[in-house]
């Protein structure tokens, strides 16, 4: 697997004007960041070139008994390499964690919409647990721009596995369960976030993490008039918007996490103070 690192499917699809379907890519690195937390990198020029923060990639098991996709937010992009970070929670993630550089894996992506970061702002990336990967990528992309500021505010159960990655891109505050949670941190940072900044940038919260955490973040933000975008999770059948399996309840009815989201505003979710 030294030469053909790029599935012919992608070339065929893009040449014909289509989005690449499920295709095989080469795994280039699998590292354990903390017990049961894995950083997984594969080579995929297409996804690397197109992925935006909060977009995700479906990984597929080699075992056809495990048919459904495993969606993971893109965590970093480096040239043609795409990195994910995931927790080993079940059979699929256990299998991926056992893979080694040189193995092949089927992927589909990039999928879903992204955070809205058009306007210059002070983006506050509030992540909890395995919600942090897409925020690392948001940090990476925001750090390439001259018109915004960004701060990572991460809460962990114990090991602060992502700080080393995100802090390469942006100013990072983190906390673990022994001290509190992201709300503890946000409370501490309240003055900093709501006060006037020298650069005049207004805060916008981008958040991803367990639902109860995101709900708390949304309420905290809306109470203070801070716009808040939340990247949601739901069990998926397809990940590309065709099966309507992945719904979340919004004020406008049930929406698809994979294609209407995964990013929704606090207002859309009805999570307003």
């Amino acid at each position: 697997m030294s030469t053909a690192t790029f599935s012919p499917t992608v070339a065929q699809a893009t040449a014909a004007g289509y989005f690449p379907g499920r295709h095989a890519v080469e795994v280039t690195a699998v590292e354990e960041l903390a017990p049961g937390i894995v950083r997984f990198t594969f080579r995929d020029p297409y996804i690397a070139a197109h992925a935006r923060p909060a977009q995700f990639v479906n990984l597929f098991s080699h075992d056809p008994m495990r048919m459904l996709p495993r969606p993971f937010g893109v965590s970093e992009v480096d040239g043609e390499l795409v990195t994910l970070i995931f927790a080993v929670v079940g059979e699929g993630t256990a299998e991926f964690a056992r893979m080694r550089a040189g193995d092949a894996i089927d992927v589909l992506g990039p999928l879903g919409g992204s955070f809205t970061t058009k306007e210059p702002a002070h983006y506050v990336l509030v992540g909890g647990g395995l919600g942090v990967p897409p925020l690392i990528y948001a940090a990476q992309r925001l750090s390439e721009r001259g018109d915004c500021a960004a701060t990572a505010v991460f809460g962990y159960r114990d090991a602060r596995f992502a700080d080393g990655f995100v802090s390469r891109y942006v100013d990072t505050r983190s906390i673990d369960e022994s001290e509190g949670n992201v709300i503890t941190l946000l409370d501490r940072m309240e003055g900093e976030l709501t006060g006037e900044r020298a650069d005049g940038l207004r805060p916008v919260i981008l958040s991803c993490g367990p639902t109860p955490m995101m709900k708390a973040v949304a309420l905290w933000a809306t109470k203070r008039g801070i716009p808040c975008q939340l990247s949601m999770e739901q069990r998926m059948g397809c990940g590309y918007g065709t099966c309507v399996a992945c719904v979340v309840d919004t004020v406008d009815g049930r929406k698809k996490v994979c294609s209407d989201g995964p990013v929704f505003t606090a207002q859309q979710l009805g999570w307003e103070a």
Partner: protein
Amino acid sequence: MGGLTMETMQREPRINVYEPHEWRHGTVVAGVPWKNPVGTASGTFQLAACRWFYDVAQMGAICTKGVSPVPWEGNPGPRTAECPGGMVNAVGLQNPGVDHYLVDELPKLKQMGATVITNVAGHSDDDYAEVVAKLADSAADMLEINVSCPNVTHGGMSVGTDPVALSRLIERLRRITSKPMIVKLTPNVTDIAAIARAAAESGADALSLINTLVGMRIDIRTGEPIIANRTGGVSGPCVFPVALACVWRVRQALPDIPIIGIGGIDSGQKALEFLYAGANAVEVGAAALVDPTAPMRVARELDDLLDSRPELAAKLAAGQTWR
């Protein structure tokens, strides 16, 4: 597993579904010509999603998601769970309603040149009648009446498991439309041939089968069902032998009615088994969720397989079946 490396995978030849292709083996289902005998299955195709992956108009037919008289919200999430070789879903027929369909998905599909089967959902006979009436002079090529959804409390499977209720409904719909009308059957019955006969005798032009099997998964971390609706419908390769036997039994009971075989098809070979069981055509469902171009790949694989089966190909071309 594990040992699957790029080298191994590259050795398995794959069809290039993006290459322009001249279909060699078309068919005719209830009078409607199909470019090839492979359609998409309802609920696993949405134009807005699938059109980015392949030229959907090249399919034998496109069967769209069930439409109801008004928009439906469906069931709360989670709506899906994995099972060995398949999946369980309990979408509950969420859809934006027939009016939206008539101004959006249907005209777009017809504009692209697709042969369209419109799947019809209802909670009551009146619901079905209302939708069918609205579709009666639409551009849809065929209607597929879904009386087999296990994920709604009223309508759906409750009609499709009762020959009397089914006859009453199909007779009524028959009076509303002269469009080719397919009745989609559930496998969750004691005697599928009896239900099939009821549908045929009350005016169905064709039958499609199967819809999903009732199934569920439980999360052993919580002891509770994974799907919010608790049970759902099983589809994917795991249902293939059951679907095949359903088609076989209905074909044995009803030698003449066109049958669309559905269930677990993910290759040209599996499609071919359905044709040998007596189906006129097939639809590809869950396979498309995990490999968006699967329906097209199945169609292409089948086109190749039919080259070496001229007798079967000739029957299909004439709208006939193997048995």
